[in-house]
């Protein structure tokens, strides 16, 4: 993609934070690069501290990188921050509605700040309140709203001015499952209805899997691997075998399984040894036989189609639950 064909592009972003006297600075971003095509939903997936939020802060002009460059909607983030601010919407990790104003007042203020007249701003506010089904609560103070409703207001505030690019920093963290499912639906239809490009950060694998057209796994301030969720999963040949063992047998079990033909990418974590099995289901008898020969009893053996968790494990070298 050339610069004009991307909604968003970041090249080799580096950002370090001083943490105090005597402690070494933290390298939050270590050469992160990413490109997002217009009209798509792109997810940055990674555990807390991977550098996702720092990336969002730089792309939304809140923070400046130590090195690297970025454009959003074709505009240089460092050279023209004001122009970028008119083209983006930000839904940060924290709820961003003014609690002492009503939902409608919040939206009207946000719209007027973006240059809309009172009449246009009020019409747009009404439109968004209806769209997110917040009409009943529209004229109540936001401090009385539920977490899920407040989160929907955040998204509405983010798109009030029909931005080219919408940033959603962990949009569903802290929501209950029902509110989360609802939010997923809203975000999916957003990209379609409002023609907006969405950059989403998340530490939920299922969220990235479900929402993203493409995703990048971020670890230690870099993009480790990038692609569509399906493509990433298909790259992993075969299935995942997880063998549960007694804790004191894990070491020996790992050694035995590493000699079984057709198994690769072995990782032991806790009482579980995971491996890729090229032969799929055919690997299970071989695994059981090898363990029996070695005098080890498997507590359980499971076989699964590759998931994003496996993609993460493969590229980062540890499973996602451990990292998160």
């Amino acid at each position: 993609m050339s610069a004009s064909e991307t909604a968003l592009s970041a090249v080799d972003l580096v950002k370090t934070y001083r943490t105090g006297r005597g402690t070494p600075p933290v390298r939050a971003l270590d050469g992160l690069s990413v490109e997002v095509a217009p009209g798509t939903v792109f997810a940055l997936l990674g555990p807390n501290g991977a550098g996702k939020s720092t990336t969002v802060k730089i792309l939304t002009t809140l923070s400046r990188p130590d090195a690297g460059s970025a454009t959003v909607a074709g505009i240089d983030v460092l050279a023209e921050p004001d122009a970028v601010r008119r083209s983006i919407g930000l839904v940060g990790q924290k709820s961003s509605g003014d609690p002492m104003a009503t939902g409608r007042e919040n939206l009207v203020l946000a719209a007027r700040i973006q240059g809309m007249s009172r009449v246009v701003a009020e019409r747009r506010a009404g439109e968004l309140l209806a769209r997110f089904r917040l009409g009943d609560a529209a004229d109540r103070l936001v401090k009385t709203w539920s977490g899920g409703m407040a989160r929907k207001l955040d998204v509405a505030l983010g798109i009030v001015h029909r931005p080219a690019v919408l940033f959603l920093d962990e949009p569903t963290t802290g929501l209950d499952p029902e509110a989360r499912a609802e939010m997923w639906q809203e975000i999916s239809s957003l990209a379609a209805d409002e023609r907006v490009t969405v950059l989403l950060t998340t530490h939920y694998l299922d969220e990235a899997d479900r929402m993203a057209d493409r995703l990048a796994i971020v670890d230690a301030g870099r993009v480790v691997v990038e692609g569509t969720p399906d493509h990433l999963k298909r790259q992993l040949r075969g299935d995942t075998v997880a063998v549960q063992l007694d804790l004191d047998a894990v070491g020996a079990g790992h050694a035995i399984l590493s000699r079984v033909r057709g198994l690769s990418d072995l990782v032991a974590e806790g009482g579980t040894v995971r491996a890729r099995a090229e032969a799929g289901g055919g690997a299970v008898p071989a695994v059981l036989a090898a363990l029996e020969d070695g005098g080890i009893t498997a507590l359980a053996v499971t076989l699964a189609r590759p998931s994003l968790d496996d993609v993460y494990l493969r590229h980062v070298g540890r499973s996602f639950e451990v990292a998160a």
Partner: protein
Amino acid sequence: MTAVATRERPGPAGGSLVRHSGFLTARATRALLRQPAFAAITLVQPVIWLLLFGELFAPVVEIPGFSAEHGSYLEFITPGVAVMTALFSSGWAGTGYIEDMERGVMDRLLASPVRRGAMMIGTLAYQGLTTVIQTLVVFGIALLAGARFPGGPTGVAVTVLATILISVIVASLSNALALVLRQQEALIGISQFIILPLQFLSSAIMDTELSPQWVQDVARYNPVDWAVVASREALEAATDWGAVWPRLGMLAVLATVMAALATRAFGSYQRSM
């Protein structure tokens, strides 16, 4: 690349500094009106100070050397209490920023086309507005309690102006501290630490002629004292305008400088994230 290029972009200015400042002032004022208890305290506090200090220290006018031409002690401290009220209310100004930071309001505004100057002016104008009302309440109560001010409406107008300027100076300081410290407790601690001496090293409630020489020396450089002296002088029968204008001028310059410096503190906040 169609979606991005063909999308209409909002106009380059996206609204002027004045418009944005107005929106944010209205937001703060609306929030105040929705907290009637807080609004009431904001108004009642100066009344209590006026009557309490008025009674407590009334006999000080008997001390030989106290500028007797000021008439009653109530008349003496009325401008003092007006300035003090502005001082204390504005010291809390920064807490609004910290609440905005704790929620995501601050980040959302900073990533929007709102100018930092408008974010600063919005809160300062709100503080100024509160100060005007508080000052007028102080005068109302003083008049009800029997105080008389020969300077008349002009004197009151000068007092209002002086209290607005003090309010802007202190609110700028409080906002700047909020942006640098980003923590409610630290902000309140430090602003109290600065505000109390500013008040007591002035002639707000005591004629500094009776204080030790060093207090008089310090008071000469204390903007709180400039505001009190200018207001008190303007409320006199025979106002010495040569004592009023230079002090108002210095307050205006300081207010502008402080507001500009405080606006720069947004940079410090953004570097921290």
